[in-house]
């Protein structure tokens, strides 16, 4: 149907799509969990917050699982190298992710304030640690990661857990967390009322400004102080996945080359810089109409798309540059599965994603309402 080169590019887009899907859906739940201690002052308010995502968090989390599994299927070397290289970071993420399903499901099963506030704390940790780690990990990808392969393609990683944290990667961690918090706040503004909605809007507009500023500073650092990577040999884009046979150098500002070559692409980061201010503006409106709330949420989603794409485009065709053996860097051309697997998986994704989006939207539509304190009190025993 498509040639290998096209399939490789399609899969770069699809991996991006799945990670964006994860950030917009599961990221929203993580934002909500992160906002929980700040927007809910009493138990019933916590329940209001949690029940806005109660019916959806599990489905949303599957974006994350599917993105991970697709990485395994389409870019097995990235899956193998990143997950084992970032071992303790991944374990930290994993252990925090354990807390979310249990907090959602178990929190309201026992009518004890101590039990419930403990689960609220667990939900906060489970919601904030993963985006922080993902942000830090993304920063590390931009900086390059110390790994290399032996002749039988066994990967050795020479970094350490603490070395993951540099001023730049902490900044990308802030970008990631702010992104989720802004997104969660626009969701809560849409789905709650009274004090909870007001507090969400107050926090959301501050976070949105922080996000835009952090994103801008990260951009400046990529321009001035972070070395980008460059392939200097010719790439056989139709070739088999052999990531160790090319030549790569680093140079300052190289991550901006794609933007310099195609200036139209500057629109992508521009959205990520400007739209958060619009979101902040919309959240500042005192009496918000439905369309204002919806636009704020759409603006937040656009920001997420733009920020993830900005990083993806900057690095293209790199997905995981190696700082210790640059020639072993992983490109979206040479880290991929075979043509047969990419073709098969493309068809599977193309078939199922529309169906998934269809029934997911149906469920959101069915569950759509403003969650109020009165509703929670009425359904004391069935609500989360």
């Amino acid at each position: 149907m498509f040639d290998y080169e096209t399939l490789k590019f399609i899969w770069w887009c699809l991996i991006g799509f799945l990670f964006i899907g994860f950030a917009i859906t599961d990221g929203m739940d993580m934002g909500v969990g992160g906002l929980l201690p700040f927007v809910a002052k009493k138990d019933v308010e916590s329940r209001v917050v949690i029940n806005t995502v109660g019916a959806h968090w599990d489905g949303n989390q599957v974006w994350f699982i599917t993105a991970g599994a697709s990485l395994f299927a389409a870019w097995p070397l990235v899956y193998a190298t990143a997950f084992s290289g970032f071992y303790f970071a991944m374990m930290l993420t994993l252990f925090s992710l354990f807390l979310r399903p249990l907090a959602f499901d178990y929190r309201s099963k026992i009518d004890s304030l101590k039990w419930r506030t403990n689960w609220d704390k667990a939900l906060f940790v489970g919601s904030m640690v993963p985006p922080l780690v993902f942000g830090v990990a993304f920063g590390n990808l931009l900086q390059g990661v110390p790994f290399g392969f032996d002749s039988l393609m066994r990967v050795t990683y020479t970094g350490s857990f603490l070395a993951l944290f540099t001023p730049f990667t902490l900044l990308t961690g802030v970008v990631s967390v702010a992104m989720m918090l802004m997104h969660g706040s626009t969701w809560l503004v849409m789905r709650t009322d009274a004090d909870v909605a007001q507090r969400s809007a107050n926090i959301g507009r501050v976070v949105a400004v922080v996000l835009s500023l952090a994103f801008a500073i990260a951009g400046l650092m990529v321009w001035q102080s972070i070395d980008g990577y460059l392939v200097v040999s010719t790439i056989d884009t139709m070739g088999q996945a052999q990531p160790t046979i090319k030549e790569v150098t680093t140079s300052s500002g190289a991550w901006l080359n794609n933007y310099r070559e195609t200036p139209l692409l500057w629109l992508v980061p521009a959205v990520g810089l400007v739209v958060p201010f619009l979101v902040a503006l919309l959240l500042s409106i005192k009496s918000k109409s439905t369309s204002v709330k919806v636009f704020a949420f759409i603006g937040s989603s656009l920001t997420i798309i733009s920020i993830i794409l900005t990083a993806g485009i900057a690095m293209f065709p790199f997905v995981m540059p190696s700082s210790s053996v640059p020639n072993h860097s992983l490109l979206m051309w040479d880290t991929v599965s075979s043509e047969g697997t990419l073709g098969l998986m493309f068809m599977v994704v193309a078939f199922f994603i529309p169906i998934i989006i269809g029934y997911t939207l149906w469920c959101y539509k069915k569950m759509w309402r403003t969650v109020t304190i009165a509703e929670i009190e009425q359904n004391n025993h069935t609500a989360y």
Partner: protein
Amino acid sequence: MISEALVELSRWQFAVTALFHFLFVPLTIGLTWILFIMEAVYVMTGREIYRDMTKFWGKLFGINFAIGVATGLTMEFEFGTNWSYYSHYVGDVFGAPLAIEGLMAFFLESTFVGMFFLGWDRLSKRQHLMGTFLMALGTNFSALWILIANGWMQNPVGSEFNYMTMRMELVSFSEIIFNPVAQVKFIHTVAGGYVAGSMFVLSISSYYLLKGRDIAFAKRSFSVAAGFGLAAIFSVILLGDESGYEVGEVQRVKLAAIEAEYHTEPAPAAFTLIGIPDDEAMETHYAVKIPYALGLIATRSLDEKVIGLRDLQKAHEPRIRNGMIAYKYLVKLRNGEDTPENIAKFNETKQDLGYGLLLKRYTDNVVDATEAQIQMAVKDSTPPVAQVFWAFRMMVASGFIMLLLFCLAFYFNARRQIEQKRWLLKSILFALPLPWIAIETGWFVAEFGRQPWAISEILPTFLSTSSLEASDVLFSLIAFIVVYSILFVIEMYLMIKFARLGPSALHTGRYHFEQVPELTSGLRSQNS
């Protein structure tokens, strides 16, 4: 060379996390259909008690489901974190079913599980029932793709090694889907889940009957579980996956280990009921045998032989030597000496490359292996027998006890005498752990019996690890054990609390603890 400590710890961590995860999966697989049956009766008859049954067993299902979801995340990460060479070596083939599972199954299950719990007032009766059905369907699809992936590890069809990319690559996806090992494993595993779900409902209903509480509710739940469970246990036993042991060398090795069959016997072979396997002497001491039985079970014939471990090992030796040649040419090809001649020589021997890799445990170079090292690799080529032998017998014994209990439960339930048979109700209550014992030992047989391979005849387990320090994995293993223990305590606390409370947990005002407030107000006020 890869440190033995790293390999051992990685294996332990995978075993601990996978076996722990699989405490919760079968109950989810089984309960979703039971919930669907109960809700379908409610929608067809409109009788409220069936809605209460759906909601109450659904509450217990939810407590189990949450921890299943949490621990399932580990499995998604762990191939990459701890088995990175495996992930690279087979990701092209093995990753696909996992990704398809996400797209086809997880999304469906997880999206509609939210509707199941919170959609009662927002969906019509039929819509909600359809949601429950889709949730159950998603759960079962999920099992299907996982077992297709696992079946490929046992019997790696439809794929080929590519020396340029240094990995296995997909050749025929339909062969992978219709892998006979995957098919029997799927049926055996989901039916095992149905048994677990049925036993769960049957045991807890027996508890209410023994206590004389909520009789109408308990009897109806008991009936559903007895019927569904009887069908399920028959499927598990009759469609047991021994029929998959005819296919593939490693499955044959596993069968010989299960039966502690060191010597090839003339057909039809006798079945060793019990005995003491001795890997050193390669003999089974004090064996109690049933004539002809093994030959019949394993080969479904009277004249086919079941080959013993001694002969299996003997046959592996030339393959190891052949694998050394394959390895020699692989190294040449990887070093750029990809002359047509070298490629041809490699292709002649590459089906034994995996056997050559077994030597990597003893020498990095493989081609310079000494005679003694080759003999050690030959010894390694079959799994330790005693563990597999005993685990299999525990599984089968649990299965047959459950078969008996389900038959009795079904019979006396049909004759409406079940309330009087207190000995049976008590037996069923205490039999609650049996499905889990059978399922966990069953997985142990399947995976431990596959050793020394991660992918049968292709990739040895010890080579599959990540390049981590043993201390890294020790640290994470301890963290898993501690955190999982805490999660387990919390889960069991809630499960036992709500199981004891029974349908009164629904706060409908119709059930036991809501009728005598002075006795139970303490219990009730703590729960919602």
